[in-house]
């Protein structure tokens, strides 16, 4: 297959301010280029034909993973999936994010694709979303008028749709600190395609009290089983504050599966949601128990 890229005017701002100014000027006539692994494919398919392409990739200091003053984590929107996998800050309670990023695409796609691009593309099967949801990530959105923070929980509005205005750019992902004895797990099944798109993905974050085996806090998120990545909040309620016993995890997993709204292969996806949720909860709790904090 030979694709012909559509024509466009190429703009390469060097600073965030310049990029925001261009975006506020051209708005819906422009698209923002980060890693290119989603946008350029859509352009080749003629699903996107912007008159202007704003190359966000030259803007400095947006590719980082760093600790903030509260002990949380800040990830620049242009951090590649591979840099998140490689970072020694995305460990301990945050490691579930690195596990998901390790699964994404292929080595080449991990080297090119950015976490910001992955989120803004807002695919229902975005692997980075469930870990970020259970870590209760907030997104920093900037525009020429200022900036705002949006909880990731409120960011996705539909398949490939977000709350972002057409003059906004995602600049940073903010992760709050995680308590000691926090463990996570990401479990998935894929469609057997060239890049193994996720068929069902489940992330769990558990905080345990190892003295009495109680799950102090639990968060469960899924992708590819609803129009957007989602939290299974009813299931979390069932698990939170309870002592870990075998029957309980089954129950929680079934509740999580009942909260899904898959469109296609619905029966299989629902059943696999329960299977993967059970595995993820078990692994997250075991990991939490093993962490020194």
């Amino acid at each position: 297959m030979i694709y012909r890229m559509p024509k466009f005017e190429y703009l390469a701002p060097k600073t965030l301010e310049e990029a925001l100014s261009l975006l506020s000027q051209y708005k819906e006539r422009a698209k923002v280029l980060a890693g290119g692994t989603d946008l350029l494919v859509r352009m080749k398919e003629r699903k996107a034909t912007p008159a202007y392409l704003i190359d966000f990739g030259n803007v400095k200091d947006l590719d980082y993973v760093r600790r903030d003053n509260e002990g949380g984590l800040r990830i620049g929107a242009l951090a590649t999936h591979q840099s998140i996998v490689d970072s020694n800050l995305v460990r301990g309670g945050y490691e579930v994010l690195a596990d998901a990023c390790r699964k994404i695409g292929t080595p080449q796609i991990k080297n090119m694709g950015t976490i910001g691009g992955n989120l803004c593309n807002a695919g229902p099967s975005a692997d980075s979303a469930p870990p970020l949801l259970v870590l209760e990530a907030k997104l920093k959105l900037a525009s020429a008028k200022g900036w705002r923070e949006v909880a990731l929980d409120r960011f996705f509005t539909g398949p490939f749709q977000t709350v972002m205005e057409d003059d906004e750019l995602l600049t940073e992902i903010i992760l709050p600190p995680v308590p000691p004895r926090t463990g996570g797990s990401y479990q998935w099944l894929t469609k057997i395609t060239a890049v193994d798109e996720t068929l069902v993905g489940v992330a769990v974050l558990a905080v345990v009290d190892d003295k009495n085996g109680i799950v102090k806090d639990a968060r469960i998120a899924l992708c590819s089983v609803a129009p957007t990545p989602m939290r299974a909040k009813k299931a979390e309620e069932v698990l939170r504050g309870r002592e870990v016993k075998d029957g309980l995890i089954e129950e929680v997993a079934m509740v999580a599966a009942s909260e899904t709204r898959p469109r296609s292969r619905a029966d299989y996806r629902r059943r696999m949601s329960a299977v993967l949720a059970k595995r993820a909860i078990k692994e997250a709790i075991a990991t939490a128990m093993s962490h020194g904090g």
Partner: protein
Amino acid sequence: MMKQVSLTVNGEVYEVAVEPWWTLLEVLREKLYLTGAKRGCDRGDCGACTVLIDGKAKLSCLTLAVKAQGKEILTVEGLAQDEELHPIQRAFVEQGAVQCGFCTPGMVLAAKALLDRNPTPSEEEVSEGLSGNLCRCTGYTKIIEAVLVASETMERRQETAR
């Protein structure tokens, strides 16, 4: 509007005028006549267009040529030193890892990127490192063996050098 770009490929600097919508793959093949990188799927699924950019394996079909300015690009043509094949190339030939050869440039470069990061990979790590490169002919067995053989050769060379 055409832009003048400087592309550093295999250590040489090329001055090329490009349209912004041309991919690096198109420019390498059609302007620089470096036809090692292949147009397989042209959409990021097959890896036949793989080149190394600043040492990292990337897909040239999803890279705009204008973005490659100021980076070090390595194609398969840049691997051999004079008349001597790179150990990875030699291993592919000697282990029978080449049938039609279409995936080979991408595979060899992906293997190089893997071994540069992880000089002694396990079989599973080799599989993972090559997971972005599809082959329709070989069934991958010989390719993985070749990469493992190459890693041993390269490790021995490092030992002798020390």
